[in-house]
């Protein structure tokens, strides 16, 4: 998948004439405004909402690419199945070997025959993530899917996604309410009451601070700290890492 063109897409009361080009190899993070369902852009891809405009993948209407699109939902419903049965359900190219490898990566390999209803909420969220990943889609949509996970499970998913992105021609679109997660992506999309307000990357975070404030967010902690310390002449440029900041502040290098 090379690119996804979202052309003049409007959803009544939710999105207004949105134009975005999503490019292969990029990890996009969407932040929106409260009370506005900007994540409805995600609902377009699972065909659960009607819209005006066009979505084109590699010059072809996106509906022909449905099999290459994976959506990990924020909420999930489980029935009384074993982990294995749950994961097999709609995995087209199901291979037990790759399943075991992935389960082992997420420390779930001992749960294969366990009833999913007896798993913790974090493990259920993890299973929901794994089920989509097993299909190896080219376009992966994360619908605030980490909120129910423990921090260690979320970190495992991020580690997995970073490796997975390198397998080529992948695009990730991640809708979140956690501003810290902006740093997970390579690009961010800020929405304000249904309008696309700003597209940026790590380098533009500080200059876009006012846009973040407009939609109710502070900057991620380390950048906020870095930015505020620059007023006191304690740092010169944005720092993205706590350890690095401490080394610079106390000249430990």
């Amino acid at each position: 998948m090379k690119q996804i063109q979202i052309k003049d897409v409007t959803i009544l009361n939710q999105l207004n004439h949105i134009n975005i080009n999503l490019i292969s190899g990029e990890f996009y993070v969407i932040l929106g405004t409260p009370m506005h369902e900007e994540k409805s852009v995600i609902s377009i891809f699972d065909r659960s909402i009607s819209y005006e405009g066009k979505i084109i993948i590699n010059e072809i209407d996106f509906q022909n690419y449905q099999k290459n699109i994976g959506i990990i939902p924020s909420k999930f419903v489980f029935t009384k199945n074993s982990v294995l049965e749950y994961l097999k359900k709609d995995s087209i190219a199901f291979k037990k070997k790759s399943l075991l490898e992935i389960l082992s990566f997420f420390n779930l390999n001992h749960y294969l025959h366990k009833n999913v209803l007896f798993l913790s909420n974090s493990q259920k969220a993890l299973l929901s993530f794994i089920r989509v990943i097993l299909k190896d889609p080219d376009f992966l949509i994360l619908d605030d899917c980490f909120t129910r996970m423990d921090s260690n499970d979320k970190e495992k998913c991020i580690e997995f996604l970073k490796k997975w992105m390198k397998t080529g021609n992948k695009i990730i679109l991640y809708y979140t309410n956690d501003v810290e997660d902006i740093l997970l992506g390579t690009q961010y999309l800020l929405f304000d009451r249904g309008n696309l307000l700003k597209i940026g990357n790590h380098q533009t975070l500080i200059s876009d601070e006012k846009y973040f404030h407009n939609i109710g967010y502070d900057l991620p902690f380390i950048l906020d700290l870095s930015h505020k310390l620059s007023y006191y002449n304690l740092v010169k440029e944005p720092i993205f890492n706590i350890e690095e900041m401490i080394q610079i502040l106390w000249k430990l290098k």
Partner: protein
Amino acid sequence: MEIKVEHLSYKKNQNPILFDVNMKISSSMITTLLGSSGSGKSTFLTLFQSGCPTNGSIYIENIDICNKEGLSTVKNKIGYLPFHYESLFVKKTVGEQLLFYLHMHSYQQDMMKQIIDTLSLVNLNQTYFTKKISELSNSERKRIALASILVYDPTYIILDEPMQDLHTCEIKALEKQLFFLKNIKHKTILVGTKDAELALRISDYIYIINQGKIIEHGDKISVLKKEKLLCSCHLKTPKMIHFSNIVNQNVNTKIGYHCDINDLIKDIYRAIPKDKNV
């Protein structure tokens, strides 16, 4: 009026989930039960509604709620927001829903005024009265669930992951309302969460639960700066606390632990030798 939990244990289908839990939840304070997914915190919080542990007691105003009679005596004073908050929805519209909870808890005063005040407490206006719950967004539904337990003005508010599904602005607003409920209305609030950042912002006191056992408790800073302990419980140390920990481990000068970034900056400024500034 405080809540006391004594030697509480709970088994589900013969599987032990809670082991000898002891807690003292002070009145007019926000106490946080911090634990990862599957640690037993939701099971524990559910007992404030069902009152059926395998062993032990929960005392509210010195009444043991772990028996039917005790629970029915204080039932109207307890507001419990479950993790699966949608289970609270029993009516079609917001107005019907809130009226239902007022009637269920035998609320005696002006019901319409109470509904409007409660909607305002969760940052919704009175136009929501006629709206259908099924047509609201996730965050609006969450706030209606919260309104359902606040509307009958309970003294003891038990909240399981209250901020999940909310936008940052809504989280900030709800945090303010929790402080209002604590400081002005003198409510006793118990919050269950896996979010240590939230625990840092709102708590007066923290209990950490892991594998069904209370393994640590104390004021929020003394608990949250124990990074290894949090990590062993699959909890993430709040960033500001982590920053102070790293400084204190690697630099000769010590800095304090803060909940506000501006206080942290003042402390950093004080702690850096001025000739070393950029």
